[in-house]
């Protein structure tokens, strides 16, 4: 299905949700930029539409660009071979403040592990729930995948790095 047709369908189902059509990668692929608040409604519309039946959230990727988190939903259908990319941005307020985003796990149950991971590593609160844990140790502070994150020197008095016999390099690494 063409992106344009998809957008017109969405405009009908959830008015005002679609912000714009954006290019995604090379080769004429497109992403649909949607309003962050209406992600859940869009998801509902896409999965319940009889023609589309986008019932499979293949991937949820989060990336930080400057002061915004970029949520990319790779959605597809098991029945109709339709593939779509949805995109929304969340503005970051401060370094260690949680950001809110609607959860899509009621529509796409497979979103649970993706949302859990993004929630923990980027500090996003999906739905009304709290920030989930599972990857980081209990009591870990900060959101490691944000650009502003500084790796702590120690955690509960356990030093994270041993003094290297060859010293630290000043070469290729960005964090040096």
């Amino acid at each position: 299905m063409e992106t344009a047709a998809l957008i017109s369908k969405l405009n009908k189902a959830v008015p005002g949700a679609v912000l714009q059509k954006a290019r995604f990668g090379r080769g004429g692929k497109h992403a649909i930029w949607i309003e962050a608040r209406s992600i859940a409604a869009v998801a509902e519309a896409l999965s319940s539409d009889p023609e589309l039946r986008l019932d499979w959230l293949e991937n949820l990727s989060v990336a930080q660009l400057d002061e915004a988190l970029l949520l990319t939903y790779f959605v597809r259908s098991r029945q109709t071979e339709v593939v779509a990319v949805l995109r929304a941005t969340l503005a970051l307020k401060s370094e260690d403040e949680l950001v809110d985003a609607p959860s899509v796990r009621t529509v796409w149950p497979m979103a649970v592990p993706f949302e859990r991971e993004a929630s923990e590593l980027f500090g996003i609160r999906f739905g009304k729930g709290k920030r989930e844990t599972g990857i980081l140790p209990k009591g870990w502070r900060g959101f490691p995948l944000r650009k502003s994150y500084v790796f702590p020197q120690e955690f509960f008095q356990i030093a994270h790095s041993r003094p290297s016999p060859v010293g630290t390099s000043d070469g290729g690494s960005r964090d040096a």
Partner: protein
Amino acid sequence: MLETLRTDLTSWEIGPYHGALPGPMRMKLRIDGEIIISTDLETGFLHRGLEKAFELHPWPATVAYADHLDPEAAFFGELALCLAVEEISGLDCPPRAQAIRVLLSELSRISAHLGYIVKVGRAVGAETLIHYVLRDREKILDLFELLSGARYSLNFLRFGGVAADVTEGFIERVLEVAELLRARLKEYNDLFTFNHSFLLRTAGVGVITRELALQSGLTGPNARAAGLAFDARKAHPYIGFDKLDFEVPVGRGEAGRLGDAHDRFLVRLRELSQSLEILKDVAETVPEGEFSRMRIDRDFEVPNGESYARVESSRGLLGCHVVSDGGRFPARVQFRVPTSANLTLLPEIVRGLAIEDLPVVIASLDLCLAEADR
């Protein structure tokens, strides 16, 4: 009478380190007698901050990190990353390099599936089979070493090709090993696949229904065993898989029910033989030419942009979403790993099973904690 007999629930924690587990994770079981009532999974013990590490290293060094996504089939991580980066920067891969990539991809798949047979064999206590399979997997690891110099972490792919041309005699040895493995597969089947005790342990155990597979976004051989014929090699052909003729085996529920542990085992065996076919086809027709478009360069820059590459790894759909801000370092590299779906449905399918089925089900799911935790 027996059905109404209820005993107090017992808690049992397995892990984080235990031989029956696929890697470090903790299972908190609630068991009624010996029936599993509920399972809580705690993962993250193997979180190495891999995705963060990508952002801190220059582009050429990231391939070495992609190796460590899934140590048992390191090649697929590399391949996904390279495909994504090549798409952004518009590099195309020479035909010879593509053929080498297909060879490596299928060899990795075979080696990972042989490793899977070992896991299942160990879970049901079939010692002899384990040794036979490990012996044969060694042949493939030797091939890897011959080609790239390493047995697991190949680090052989480069953006726009492969690191080096094939060594002399490699193609012949691939064909030899393929021939050998075909004979071995028959031996495994005679020894094990339809052994009565093995059927008893796996048939009808740990059934993944079609609905459950759909709900959890399951991919790979596990989903195919449940009847979902999705294969990224067919749905989104890459490195020339569209030109190859191969089948995607789907579970048939021969021994027990569709989507049980035995189906998962059989589907992988069938995939193995399909991969052998592909190996044979490709190895006989490796085109001549260059093996890489560019030499490795520390200052290699990827233009501003993003892409998403899909690869069918031995465990399922491996996606790689790469965002570049046009510099020497990636802005974001995200992997969509197949194991996280497997992990979410593990508590579902072990509910109501006896605790002795737990190792078998875990082994038959082919979990990889390194990949799930990253």
